[in-house]
């Protein structure tokens, strides 16, 4: 990367793709992450697929990870870049702990730190090819936010990446409310994940749900959703769609 940066600007703009040391497209990708606030904290859901292009290449990729004591991250997009981001975050938490002074970074701080990293990398025209969801609880304060590969970031009561924005968030807008219990939250997330599984070709039926509350992080073991493929709408998908497919 550095060798590229030190060349005159023209060469890197005109140069062929083969000269580039940058991520031009992702290789192995994970699909949507969905997150919601609920009564006691935050819930995140993501499946465990890793797609190599359109091939469902890996089936056990953990995309929900704890960050320190107060935060939880979910990553979609390029898996290796997500692993790199986890390295940054683990370094961050380590050096934060090394102060050993009772202060610790909360979800808001981690989210902002990620935003700085993502935006900084996109400004070098070398983005980390991810959309991330960051949730957490600190001092009774729930936090849920997202940031993507070009540094766009926001907070909301429910967030989703990728296809989730189109398929899950409309459901969440209808059904989400502040006082969801843990069980209701899980049911709502499973509903979202099931719709994604039906309509998102890169989704796989193996998912995890992670919970963070004041007490700490719990990430569920992988499990599958019950599905029903005999809906009449599934039988002849091209029937009502003129033109495209």
């Amino acid at each position, binding site marked *: 990367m550095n060798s590229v940066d030190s060349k005159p600007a023209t060469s890197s703009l005109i140069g062929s793709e083969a000269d580039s040391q940058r991520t031009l497209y992702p290789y192995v990708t994970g699909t949507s992450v969905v997150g919601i606030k609920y009564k006691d904290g935050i819930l995140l859901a993501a499946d465990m697929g890793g797609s190599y292009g359109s091939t469902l290449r890996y089936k056990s990729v953990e995309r929900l990870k704890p960050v320190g004591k107060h935060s939880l991250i979910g990553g979609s997009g390029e898996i290796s870049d997500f692993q790199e981001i986890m390295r940054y975050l683990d370094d961050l938490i380590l050096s934060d702990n090394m*102060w050993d*002074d009772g*202060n610790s*970074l*909360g979800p*808001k701080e981690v989210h*902002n*730190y990620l935003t*700085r990293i993502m935006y900084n990398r996109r400004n070098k025209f070398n983005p980390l090819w991810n959309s991330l969801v960051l949730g957490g609880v600190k001092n009774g304060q729930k936090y849920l936010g997202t940031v993507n590969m070009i540094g766009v970031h926001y907070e909301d009561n429910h967030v989703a990446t990728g296809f989730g924005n189109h398929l899950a968030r409309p459901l969440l807008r209808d059904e989400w409310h502040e006082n969801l219990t843990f069980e209701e939250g899980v049911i709502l997330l499973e509903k979202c994940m099931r719709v994604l599984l039906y309509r998102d070709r890169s989704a796989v039926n193996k998912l995890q749900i992670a919970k963070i509350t004041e007490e700490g992080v719990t990430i569920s073991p992988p499990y599958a959703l019950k599905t029903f493929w005999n809906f009449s709408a599934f039988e002849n998908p091209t029937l009502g769609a003129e033109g495209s497919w």
Partner: protein
Amino acid sequence: MFRNQYDTDVTTWSPAGRLFQVEYAMEAVKQGSAAIGLRSKSHVVLACVNKTSSELSSHQKKIFKVDDHIGVAIAGLTADGRVLSRYMRNECINYFYTYESQLPVGRLVVQLADKAQVCTQRSWKRPYGVGLLVGGLDESGAHLYYNCPSGNYFEYQAFAIGSRSQAAKTYLERKFESFMDSSRENLIKDALFALRETLQGEKLTSSVCTIAVVGVGEAFHILDQETVQELINEFEIAGEEAPVAEPAAPDQAGVAGPAAPDQAGAAEPAADDDTLAAPGDQGAAPMDM
């Protein structure tokens, strides 16, 4: 010219295990005009004495806002104090840019102390000749720290530095136990009382002092002169009526909290003697302090 053969550079130890240049830097702090700080659970008050070097000049600023939640009061070389204030402002702004939250006071103080420590271990540097009272508010409450040229730092309930600060320390030592639950107004009142102790009978007016406050729901700010004068009038602490304190015993112990940094020791007579000196000798500092 030299007091002994081990004091020409900072990195040379004396056989007694002392670094004289560092100790001289700490002397510079004692010659600056007084600065005091005290805190309750929710507020920190910083106060200082404004000294003019001549009738014709204004005084130098001795209290600096670092960020909305942190401020410093300095005693010693004001120029060094300004440089360190700028450093602290930078650190706060950078932290805010990265995390969108405020730098914990304790961390800033450690960074500052580390910066001062470097100067005690490099042959081409000199220690900073300034002591800083760092007051601030963070998640864990209100804090008051003293940063010393030696690179040491201490957290205090209340503290005073600079010339004739022993008198203020004596006052604070007598009262500090009530500070934790003190109201903002009482804290300012005690700050003014403590400040008056350092004036040795000189009249306390708003023009000879600066007061600054930071606390819950209140960003760090320096009180304007009219407000300070009103407080002085309200508390009726202006007068030269005999000082409330018993004549300050020049005892060397630190105030509430950890023991004061080992003060120089036997070689030279304790410089706090200026509490006893005639008021005429205050111009003695070789540079503007």
